[in-house]
């Protein structure tokens, strides 16, 4: 027992000497990215900053934990890691909710537009009625929301910072507002063609480290380490190494060395988000109804093809059904939205309806096939002896009877679709779950947004289940 305790302590001990920090390697260079030489390791200026902080704290080393960028705040509060660091923005809400370090990098929110638009577009104000993309739950997204109300631009939110630029080049959006180092990286990746970055920044922002609310003592130590790193030039060296140093950064670091007070802003009012949640619920409902309509129509065609078609049609419909059911919906969404972009450039909402509808059609088809096959053979034979054609038997006898068997699984599918529609946020459609995530990131907690979101989903799905049960009972009266 004692030996076990000693062993446990021995294992525990080194951990306290390691700074565990979290970031999103999917965000990529120059922040954090998988090292091409050794993909199990990460590299980037935030990696070096984390290492510098660890050294300054007297820790043996810094250990990286992968976390989705939008979940950094929640994860640091949960204790998944001590320090969140990966282009984390300095916002009043974040300062109110968590322990936040002094800023260590100043970035400019810059607009990127297609080269042929650069003469016409100089600022957000020139983008009235145009689609402007950015990363969701960022200062840039808040800027776009404000600009929507003031100048009438259309904000488009993405889950990553790569696709806004590919969609800009593809013509799906008219501008991208993001941090200048992200914009510069995207331009380099695109071979310095396709779009230009406007020189006049829309706003300034800062990257900070974020710690759990109760961890302010460690935060103060990290602040001291960061100030040291600014004074002794090691921060400048890191930024120079990653090619993100410029004169503006020098001016910023010079002023940042002096201690500054942190101001806490009032927490965002929970109810202020209700209208946008309801709007997003409308998107979810519209998306689900249109997708389900498509799924029913295509599903009926597939089921008929599988039951009545000639051999080639049976093979094709079966292949479609198996292909769609055997691959993830997420993949299908990406293929339809991004994969087909070279052939047809579908608007996001239409791509979402197509992907969901065509995916669910495969499941509907199997429900209809099962239901049609469940209709007793003598019912069909009775129809034939009366002189009905096969089409009439399907329409007048088999279909209506199959409907009774199909109704319950169809309702299940619709409720599932209602929830699966949240997946389409990956192609920039802001529906209920995405809106909730944005809301949760802004207020720094999932409790109220999560509960509200769940309530809205239930409000939509419960009446539906009730309606289906009633319909089933009514149809059931006719059956055996």
């Amino acid at each position, binding site marked *: 027992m004692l030996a076990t305790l000693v062993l446990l302590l021995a294992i525990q001990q080194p951990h306290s000497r390691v700074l565990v920090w979290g970031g999103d390697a999917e965000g990529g260079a120059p922040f954090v990215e998988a090292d091409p030489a050794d993909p199990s390791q990460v590299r980037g200026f935030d990696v070096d900053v984390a290492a510098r902080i660890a050294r300054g704290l007297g820790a043996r080393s810094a250990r990286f934990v992968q976390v989705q960028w939008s979940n950094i705040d929640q994860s640091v509060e949960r204790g998944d890691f001590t320090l969140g660091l990966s282009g984390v923005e300095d916002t009043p809400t974040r300062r109110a909710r968590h322990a936040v370090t002094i800023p260590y990098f100043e970035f400019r929110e810059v607009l990127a537009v297609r080269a042929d638009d650069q003469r016409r577009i100089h600022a957000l104000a020139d983008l009235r009625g145009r689609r402007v993309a950015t990363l969701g739950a960022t200062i840039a997204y808040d800027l776009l929301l404000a600009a929507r109300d003031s100048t009438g631009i259309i904000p488009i939110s993405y889950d990553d910072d790569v696709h806004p630029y590919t969609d800009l080049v593809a013509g799906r959006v008219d501008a991208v507002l993001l941090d200048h180092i992200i914009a510069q990286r995207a331009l380099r990746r695109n071979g310095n063609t396709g779009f230009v970055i406007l020189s006049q920044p829309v706003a300034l922002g800062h990257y900070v480290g974020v710690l759990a609310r109760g961890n302010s003592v460690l935060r103060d130590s990290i602040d001291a380490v960061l100030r040291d790193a600014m004074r002794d030039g090691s921060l400048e060296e890191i930024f120079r190494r990653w090619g993100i140093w410029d004169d503006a950064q020098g001016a910023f670091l010079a002023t940042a060395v002096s201690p500054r007070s942190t101001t806490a802003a009032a927490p965002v009012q929970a109810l202020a988000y209700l209208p946008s949640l309801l709007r997003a619920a409308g998107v979810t409902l519209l998306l689900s109804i249109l997708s389900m309509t498509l799924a029913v129509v295509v599903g009926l065609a597939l089921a008929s093809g599988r039951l009545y078609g000639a051999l080639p049609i049976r093979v094709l419909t079966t292949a479609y059904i198996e292909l769609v059911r055997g691959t993830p919906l997420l993949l299908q969404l990406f293929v339809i939205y991004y994969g087909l972009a070279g052939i047809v450039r579908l608007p996001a909402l239409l791509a979402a309806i197509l992907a969901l509808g065509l995916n669910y059609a495969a499941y509907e088809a199997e429900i209809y096939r099962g239901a049609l096959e469940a209709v007793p053979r003598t019912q069909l034979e*009775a129809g034939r*002896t009366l002189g*009905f054609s096969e089409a009439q038997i399907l329409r007048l006898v088999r279909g209506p009877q199959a409907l009774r068997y199909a109704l319950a699984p169809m309702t299940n599918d619709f409720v599932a679709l209602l929830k699966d529609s949240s997946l389409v946020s990956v192609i920039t459609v802001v529906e209920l779950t995405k809106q909730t995530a944005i809301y949760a990131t802004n207020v720094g907690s999932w409790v109220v947004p999560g509960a509200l979101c769940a309530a809205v989903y239930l409000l939509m799905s419960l009446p539906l289940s009730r309606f289906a049960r009633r319909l089933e009972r009514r149809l059931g009266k*006719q059956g*055996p």
Partner: protein
Amino acid sequence: MSALLAIDGLSVRFGARDVVHGLSLAVARGEIVALMGPSGAGKSTTLRAVAALQAFDAGRILVDGFALAPGPVPAESKLRPLRRRVGLVFQAHALFEHLCALDNVTLALRHVLRQSRVESEATATRLLTDLDVGGRAAAWPRQLSGGEAQRVAIARALAPDPALLLLDEPTAALDPVRRSALGTTLRRLSQQGRGLLVATHDAAFVREYTDRAVSLS
């Protein structure tokens, strides 16, 4: 008088098993013929072959000038003349479960004979009333008793006014009162000039209500 139905050397094989072998029979207009034999003797199979629900291997079936030949059942589009001539009452009735009794009868009138709703409902009501189930027109099939369901099924089969009516084990689920009422009904249908072929193993019923019997062994 020429036969309404002439079966000549009918054979049906299920795999290696001879279900019907070399059966010949004829049914004239106004005649009730019983097709007798124990269970599994091929009575239902014979009726199904005449109704073109079942392929047969040899022989010939002639219904009022329309011939069925051995081989696969022809497409429905080729069977229209036969469908107008032959009605079949299934043993388990096979009423359309999603329609009330009246609509079970009107369905073919409206969609095959293209009658108007009013016309088809008048015809159906008359048929149901003749068969003593006029009061059950609005009932769903599962609400009907066995005897009522059978009479609705007869009304449905009679709707297209077929010359030949096939009945599969019609007395199987009937009490004695219903059984004699059925016999009277069949008699009346034959007097209207229809030919009836009744598959049954009910010898008493055959003696009492049919003109002659053909035995399958």
